[in-house]
């Protein structure tokens, strides 16, 4: 086991080198074109192209009669290219949506391909054996030449994408706007489509169909969860594509009968899943935490505010109160829970005194601000929306937690440094 790991990391076997480097380079180019495809709502182009190449292969075979790889690949490329151009045209010239356009192109081209296969079947040409799978490769069987080819492809893709970055970005996010500011949209689309088809056809002939479809989609989807900025997203997508290739190759080296391509797909899937769950800000765990934190902050701020107003009303002394007491005062059972008080202590906003809690000077400042903001907002509602004083409390209760110091300043200015709220209570400064 350990020896296998070390052999893998040190590239001891030449085949490890081919597979790892090949899948990393392919992962990078696929992630780049895949990100744009994903943003243009055509994440499934990989699948479309890999089915659409069949008639191209068949026609090329019918023309030359042997399985000559470069010519079959040329046929495959032309067919894949035509299908994607057709998809682009359908999306922009008709009301057909991207997913339907892809599916129509896929099924028609594939239908034609299967039909041609049966025609070839009746020609009696013995060279046809395995024609339908002939150009589909296997990621474990990458050759030295593939590594160079993929390196070239990755460099070309990176260079072209950096040259046309602004154009491609606009094309993906707002095609209408790109047209209106006079970009050569059609030419750009053909360029992007051609780049995509080249990457896909190179990919499927070396690594197989399903892997390429996944290399296009998964990194882009996962990267979208890590950042908002397109440039960063492309970088992250490339890294994820490369990482997936590396991990998949590694697993397939650990034991026999572990297919490399499918393991890369599985690795990419789990990276994507991990991103959906764990990515900062956009992942569901982060979103869940954000919601939780907000809830807690509201709870804490409420307690501070309640203690402040209790002191203000003379019900307690020195800002000290037990949770039970506060709950009774506010007639709110939920205030009995001591966790929020403990959190206040941890933030140095309060200190524990036996079973009671006392606000520190920092806590009093914080509480004062909350009460101030609350009352300012009440006043604002009463003043500008002409709401009666008994209708403004509820609204202020929720808005007080999100008012920023800037809004606070504006409110004070707008209300001309008021001293009392609609209920006649002092606004603390």
């Amino acid at each position, binding site marked *: 086991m350990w020896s296998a790991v070390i052999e893998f990391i040190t590239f001891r*076997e*030449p*085949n*490890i080198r*081919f*597979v790892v480097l090949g899948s990393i380079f392919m992962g990078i180019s696929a992630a780049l074109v895949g990100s744009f495809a994903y943003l243009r709502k055509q994440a499934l182009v990989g699948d479309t192209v890999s089915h659409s190449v069949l008639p191209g292969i068949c026609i090329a075979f019918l023309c030359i009669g042997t399985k000559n*790889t470069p010519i079959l690949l040329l046929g495959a490329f032309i067919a894949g290219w035509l299908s994607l151009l057709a998809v682009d045209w359908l999306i922009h010239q008709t009301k057909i949506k991207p997913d339907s356009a892809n599916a129509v192109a896929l099924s028609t081209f594939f239908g034609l391909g*299967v039909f041609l*296969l*049966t025609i070839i*079947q*009746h020609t*009696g*040409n*013995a*060279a*046809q*054996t*395995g*024609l*339908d*799978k*002939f*150009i*589909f*490769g*296997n990621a*474990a*069987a*990458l*050759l*030295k030449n593939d590594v160079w080819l993929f390196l070239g492809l990755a460099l070309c893709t990176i260079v072209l994408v950096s040259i046309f970055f602004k154009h491609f970005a606009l094309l993906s996010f707002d095609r209408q706007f790109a047209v209106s500011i006079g970009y050569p949209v059609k030419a750009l689309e053909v360029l992007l489509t051609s780049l995509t088809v080249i990457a896909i056809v190179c990919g499927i002939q*070396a690594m*197989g169909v399903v892997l390429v479809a996944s290399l296009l989609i998964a990194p882009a989807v996962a990267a979208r969860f890590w950042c908002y900025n397109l440039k960063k997203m492309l970088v992250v997508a490339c890294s994820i594509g490369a990482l997936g290739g590396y991990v998949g*190759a590694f697993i*397939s*080296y*650990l*034991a*026999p*009968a*572990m*297919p*490399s*391509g*499918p*393991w890369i797909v599985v690795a990419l899937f789990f990276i994507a899943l991990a991103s959906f769950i764990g990515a900062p800000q956009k992942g569901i765990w982060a979103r869940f935490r954000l919601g939780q934190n907000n809830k807690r902050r509201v709870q804490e701020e409420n307690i501070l505010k309640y203690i402040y107003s209790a002191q203000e009303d003379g019900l307690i002394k020195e800002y000290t109160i037990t949770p039970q007491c506060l709950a009774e005062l506010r007639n709110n059972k939920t205030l009995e829970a001591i966790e929020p008080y403990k959190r206040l202590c941890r933030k140095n906003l309060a200190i524990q005194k036996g079973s009671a809690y006392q606000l520190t000077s920092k806590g009093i400042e914080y509480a004062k601000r909350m009460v101030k903001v609350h009352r300012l907002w009440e006043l604002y509602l009463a003043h500008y929306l002409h709401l009666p004083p008994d209708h403004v409390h509820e609204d202020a209760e929720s808005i007080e937690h999100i008012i920023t110091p800037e809004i606070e300043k504006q409110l004070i200015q707008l209300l001309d440094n008021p001293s009392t709220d609609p209920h006649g209570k002092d606004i603390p400064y």
Partner: protein
Amino acid sequence: MLNLRLETFGMKILAAFRLCLLCLFIGYLGIGCKQSSKEKVFTHSSSLRIVATTGIVGDAVKNIVLNKAEVNVLMGPGVDPHLYKASQKDLELLSKADVIFYNGLHLEGKMAEVLEKLKKQKKIVAIAEAIPVNKLIKVGENENLYDPHVWMDVSLWKYAVIECARVLQSIDTSNAAFYKQNLDNYLQALDSLDAYIETEIAKIPSIPRVLITAHDAFSYFSRRYHIEVKSLQGISTVAEFGLRDITNLVDFIVARKIKAVFMESFIPERSIRAVIEGCKAKNHEVKLGGVLFTDALGAEGTPEGTYIGMLKANVKTITDGLR
């Protein structure tokens, strides 16, 4: 006003729709007419109409009936059961056939299920299933699944040929003696083929006497003719080999100093190329010995277009490569 315009627009769309329907139907009628004239070409002959699924099964049948019956093969030269797609033509052949021969042992996949059901109406025979079960090689653990590539062992294929002749004799009694005669002749040819393969393979020195291929279709061949077989993956065409399989095979080739590797015609060449490159990087030159025939025969009219010729070609490729 707007409403009116929309309505006329709708009418136009409707008209367009009618127009294209009309075009389509006219088109279909055209195709249909052309077809009906072609239909008459089909002639009815009084001789037995036999359909065989694979070229190899068809070759066995042809050697028994010679010119006394019409033999049609669904999977022609170069068509293996994975590539095969049934066409309209094949449906006609199947429904008009008096007797259908197929390999069986799940070689034909889904088609075998249909043939199985059709047995109620027609004489349909799975010839490879006539081979005694104890001579078959099991795949999987606990169920009745066997490797279908039985024709790789000539002595087993003889059972299939005999079954084929038996069925034909029982159906076409008028030609029974003729079939018997042909069978005897053909069995003799098969016997000498069997002996030929055995002696030829035995000539390869035993250390590097290993047949390395991409796909494992040679287990019967290996057992009968005492040649070790190593392949990247099993019979399944969906299964894929991994990086470790390649490096293991490379190590094996280097250790045993094997001179050549082979590939099957229906597998992309690249998979075995990776092995060759791996060996090269370890300073062991191994060459691509050539392409072996497995599930499909070669082109009609060439020696590889028959079962005997195909096996002989395989043996020549193997011995040339390894010697």
